[in-house]
């Protein structure tokens, strides 16, 4: 074991200085060290003698201490635990112990097997033919380029309706007049004057209105005819009468 320690001492490099396990920085923790020792037994890990392994570990740690190497705490914890396990394994069996020392030893063995399996697997992975080291991809691929092009779906209808809406909103006055048909005051005056010239008895205002199916046009005619009737009464050309509120407004020419 002495030469193992010396070997590790000689190999101490500055690369791993972030690791606190100063003296044992070749190993990644006690389990790693145990696995190395187990492999040194050169038997299948399933056949390994845990007792022998514990002995080796404890000797190793003792040697390191004798050399006054700084030993990280977790190695010492493992050493203490293994010393305990060793004593349990050697002492007469305590049937009450749970878990039994045999089970503890078995657990350790199983853990070592698992770590060993993954270490092997890692090595086999790294040994594969790897891209960029053993296998190469195309050095200068042309690349597959997708050129996006807009396919405009606007049609003639979209175009002319857009123009229509501009026209509609920028020429609102023309637009409104064209849409609504109304009877102006002048038109109503003219009509009333004409009709009063040929009818001499009382007539309802509604009877003076032009005949139309358009209720909007009729309302407009009613409003302008009413104003026209008031105007004619003011000028002394017509007489107005209404029996009560909301009764028909009666109209007659004044001679």
């Amino acid at each position: 074991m002495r030469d193992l320690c010396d070997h590790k001492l000689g190999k101490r490099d500055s690369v791993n200085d972030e690791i606190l396990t100063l003296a044992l920085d070749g190993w990644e923790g006690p389990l790693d060290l145990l696995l190395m020792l187990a492999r040194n037994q050169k038997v299948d890990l399933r056949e390994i003698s845990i007792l022998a392994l514990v002995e080796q570990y404890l000797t190793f740690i003792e040697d390191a201490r004798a050399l006054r190497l700084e030993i990280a705490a977790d190695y010492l914890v493992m050493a203490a635990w293994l010393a305990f396990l060793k004593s349990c394994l050697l002492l007469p069996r305590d049937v009450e112990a749970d878990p039994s020392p045999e089970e503890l030893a078995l657990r350790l063995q199983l853990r070592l097997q698992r770590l060993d399996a993954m270490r092997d697997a890692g090595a086999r992975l790294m040994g594969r033919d790897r891209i960029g080291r053993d296998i190469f991809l195309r050095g200068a691929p042309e690349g597959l380029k997708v050129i996006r092009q807009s396919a405009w779906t606007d049609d003639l209808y979209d175009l002319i309706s857009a123009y229509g809406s501009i026209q509609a909103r920028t020429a609102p006055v023309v637009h409104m007049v064209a849409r609504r048909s109304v009877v102006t005051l002048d038109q109503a005056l003219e009509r009333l004057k004409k009709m009063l010239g040929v009818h001499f008895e009382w007539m309802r205002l509604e009877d003076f209105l032009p005949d139309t199916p358009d209720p909007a046009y009729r309302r407009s005619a009613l409003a302008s005819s009413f104003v026209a009737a008031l105007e004619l009464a003011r000028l002394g050309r017509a007489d107005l009468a209404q029996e009560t509120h909301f009764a028909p407004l009666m109209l007659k020419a004044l001679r």
Partner: protein
Amino acid sequence: MEAPDDLQRAIEAALFAAESPLSLADLATVIGIDTDLRPALAKLESDYAGRGINLVERGGRWHFETSADLAHILRRTREDPRKLSRAAIETLAIIAYHEPVSRAEIESIRGVQISKGTLDVLMEAGWVRPAGRREAPGRPLTFATTRGFLDHFGLQSRRDLPGIDDLRAAGLLDPVDIALEQLEVETIADEA
């Protein structure tokens, strides 16, 4: 196309992995062989002649490239169906009805400013072109529509565009309030 020998395989792999075309000397260095590589290259050239990849020599250097007739695979054009923004279609309509027309005139007809991208989109679509400067103060650039515009919208000529009376008859003059609302929505969207 019989199985390649070791030299041909090595050349094949070296040219494939190379980042630039290799001369005979480069190849010899890479492969570490000191024989005439020309026969092997000729064999490979004929092996690949009818394939999607060809071995070619340009100016004494060799490389693999995809066959010229398959260039369309390397550059694929994808068409995205899209509609013009409201601002763009209105601008296009104004240009079509009033061409040649300056940007300021377009804005005065629309009643809103047009953003820089709007005319770009129309020019990129191939429907609008600059149509010279107007002999007026500031010499403003004017715009007009193109042959491509007529083709896309199925018009023989601009005279086929319906007049304002036709539009009204077709009910295409929206009620004022609706048109104004739309304008407001658009302005808000533009500002956002």
